[in-house]
C-alpha cells in the first residue's frame, strides 16, 4: 500500500516551548490511525501544522493524491484542504450564526464554482449550481442524521449534533484524508458508541484515511489499527493498540492511568 501521508522531523516552537519536535508519521491509504497523548502533548498542534494553520519550524509534510506527491509544509489551509485533507476542530469552529445547511454548502460550493456575473445577474449557471450544491449538502446532512435541523442556526444545535456537523462540513470538501480532533469530546457513552460506528462507516463509504485524536480510550482502542503516542511534543510509542497499551513509556506518560 502507498503512504497517503508522510511526516518527517516535524517541529514547531512557540517562543521557547517545543510544542512538537521531530515528529514522524506514516499513514497508508485507507488506514484508521489514532494520535493520543496527555493534555498539552502537542496533538492539536500537529493537526494545525498538517493543515497549515501554523507553518512548521522545521520538517516536511508529504501528501499524495492520485499518485502525485505534494509538499504541504507551510501551505495555506485552503490549499491543504483543496489538496484533499479535511479536518474538524477540538473547540468546534462552526459558522454559528449560519444555518446547518449553509455550513455544509459553503464547504461543498468550493468544488462547484460559477462566475461573478452569474451571481450578480442570476444567470442560469447560478440556479443550476445552487440547486446542485443544496441537493448534495442535504444528502450529506441526511447521512449524518442532521437533515431535520438543516434550517436551524448552528449555534442552536445540541453539542453532539455540532460535532456531527463539523464532520459533515469536513466531508463536504471531499477529502481523502480526514483529521478528527477529539470528535467524542463531551459526549456520553451512548453517543460515543454511536460515533464510533459512524466513523467506521464513513471510512468505508467515502474511502477515507483517518487520523484521529481522542482521549476516550474505548473509542481509540476499538477502531484504530495503529496508534501514535505523543508526549511533550515527541512520539514516545507507536504500534497496534495492544502494543501501545503494554508500552511502559506510555503507561508512565499517563501516570499510571488506565490506558
Amino acid at each position, binding site marked *: 500500500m502507498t503512504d497517503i501521508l508522510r511526516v518527517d522531523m516535524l517541529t514547531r516552537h512557540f517562543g521557547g516551548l517545543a510544542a512538537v519536535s521531530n515528529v514522524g508519521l506514516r499513514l497508508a491509504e485507507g488506514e484508521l490511525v489514532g494520535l493520543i497523548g496527555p493534555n498539552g502533548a502537542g496533538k492539536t498542534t500537529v493537526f494545525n501544522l498538517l493543515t497549515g494553520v501554523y507553518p512548521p519550524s522545521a520538517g516536511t509534510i508529504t501528501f499524495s493524491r492520485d499518485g502525485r506527491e505534494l509538499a504541504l509544509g507551510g501551505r*495555506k489551509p485552503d490549499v491543504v484542504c483543496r489538496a484533499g485533507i479535511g479536518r474538524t476542530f477540538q473547540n468546534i469552529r462552526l459558522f*454559528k450564526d*449560519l444555518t446547518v445547511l449553509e455550513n455544509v*454548502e459553503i464547504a461543498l*460550493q*468550493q468544488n462547484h464554482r460559477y462566475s461573478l456575473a452569474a*451571481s450578480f*445577474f442570476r444567470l442560469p449557471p447560478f440556479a443550476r449550481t445552487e440547486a446542485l450544491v443544496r441537493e448534495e449538502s442535504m444528502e450529506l446532512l441526511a447521512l449524518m442524521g442532521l437533515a431535520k435541523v438543516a434550517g436551524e442556526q448552528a449555534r442552536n444545535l445540541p453539542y453532539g449534533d455540532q460535532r456531527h456537523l463539523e464532520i459533515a462540513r469536513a466531508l463536504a470538501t471531499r477529502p481523502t484524508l480526514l483529521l478528527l480532533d477529539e470528535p467524542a469530546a463531551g459526549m456520553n457513552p451512548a453517543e460515543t458508541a454511536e460515533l464510533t460506528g459512524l466513523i467506521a462507516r464513513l471510512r468505508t463509504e467515502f474511502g477515507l484515511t483517518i487520523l484521529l485524536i481522542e482521549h476516550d480510550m474505548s473509542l481509540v482502542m476499538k477502531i484504530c489499527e495503529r496508534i501514535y503516542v505523543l508526549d511533550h511534543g515527541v512520539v514516545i510509542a507507536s504500534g497496534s493498540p495492544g502494543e501501545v497499551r503494554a508500552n511502559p513509556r506510555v503507561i508512565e506518560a499517563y501516570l499510571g492511568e488506565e490506558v
Partner: protein
Amino acid sequence: MANPMVRTLLTRGVPLLLLYAVVLAGLNLGLIDDYLMATIATLCINIVLAVSLNLITGFTGQFSLGHAGFMAIGAYTTGLITIAVPTVPGFIAGLLAGGLLAALVGFLIGLPTLRLRGDYLAIATLGLAEIIRILLNNVEFTNGAAGLAGIPQMMDWNWFFILTVGSVLLIRNFLRSSHGRNAIAVREDEIAAESIGVDATRAKVLSFTVGAFFGGLAGGMYASYFYFIKPDTFGFLKSIDILVIVVLGGLGSLSGSVIAAVLLAAISTVLQQFTAVRMILYALLLVIIMVFRPQGLMGSREVSLRIVGRLFTRKPTEPDEPEATR
C-alpha cells in the same frame, strides 16, 4: 401565478413601483420642491454608500474607514467625463468608469492589506481616503481646492430609482451566492473557512472591490446631481457618516442599512428647523439608539419587501424561503 419569478416580481416590484410613481407624481404636481428632491437624492446616494460599505464591513467583517475616498474617485471621474461628453452615453460611461476606477483602487489597496489578519485595512483605507483628498486638492485638472463646477446634471428621479434599486439588488444577489457566502464564512471564522477550502484573501478582496465599485458609483450619482464637487466633500467625516448608517442599521443587514438611511434622512429633515442645536440633537439621538439597540436597528436580520408586497398581491401567507444573508 404559479411561476415563482412572476410572484417575486409582483411582491417585491409592486411596492417599489408604487414608490417610484408616488415620487414621480409628487414631482410633476409640484409637491416635491427642489429642497425635498435634494433630500431624496442624498438619501438614494447614502443607501448605495451604506449598502456597499455594509458588504465590506458587516458581511465580510473588514473595517474600512475610507469609503468617501471611493466616492471621491467616482465623483471626479463621472464629473470630468460628463463635462467632456455631456450626453447620456457620456454620463453612463462616466458612472461606469467611476465605479471601475474605484474598484481598481480598492483592489490595489485591498490585495496587500487583506492578506494579513487584523485590521490593517482600516488604517490603509483611512490613509488612502486622505491621500485622494489631498491629491484632488492639489491637482490642476480637477481644479484643486476650488472644486469642479458645471457638471451637466444628468441625474433625475428616474436615474436615482434605477441606480439605487439596481445597486441594492446586485449586492443582495452577490451576498446570496457562493461568492457572498464565502465572504460571510470568513467573517464568521476565518480559520474554519480556510480549513474548508475558502480562499480567505480572495473572498475579502472580492467583497472589498465590489464595495469600492458601488462606492464609486454613488460618487458619480452625487457629482451628476449636485453638479459641483470639491475635495473636502469627501473627507473623513463623510466616511464616518456612512459608517454610522451601517452600524445604526445593523452590521450584516442590507435592509437595516436602507432603513437607517431613511431614518437619518427623516431626522435631519425634521431637525433642519433647529439649526443651532441640530448636530447636538442628531448625535444625542444616535447615542440613544445605540444604547438601546447596540446591535443596530435590525441586528443582522432582514425584512423583505415581500411583507409589503403581500398587502398588494393578497396571496395567502406561505413560509418564507430562509432569509439566508447571515
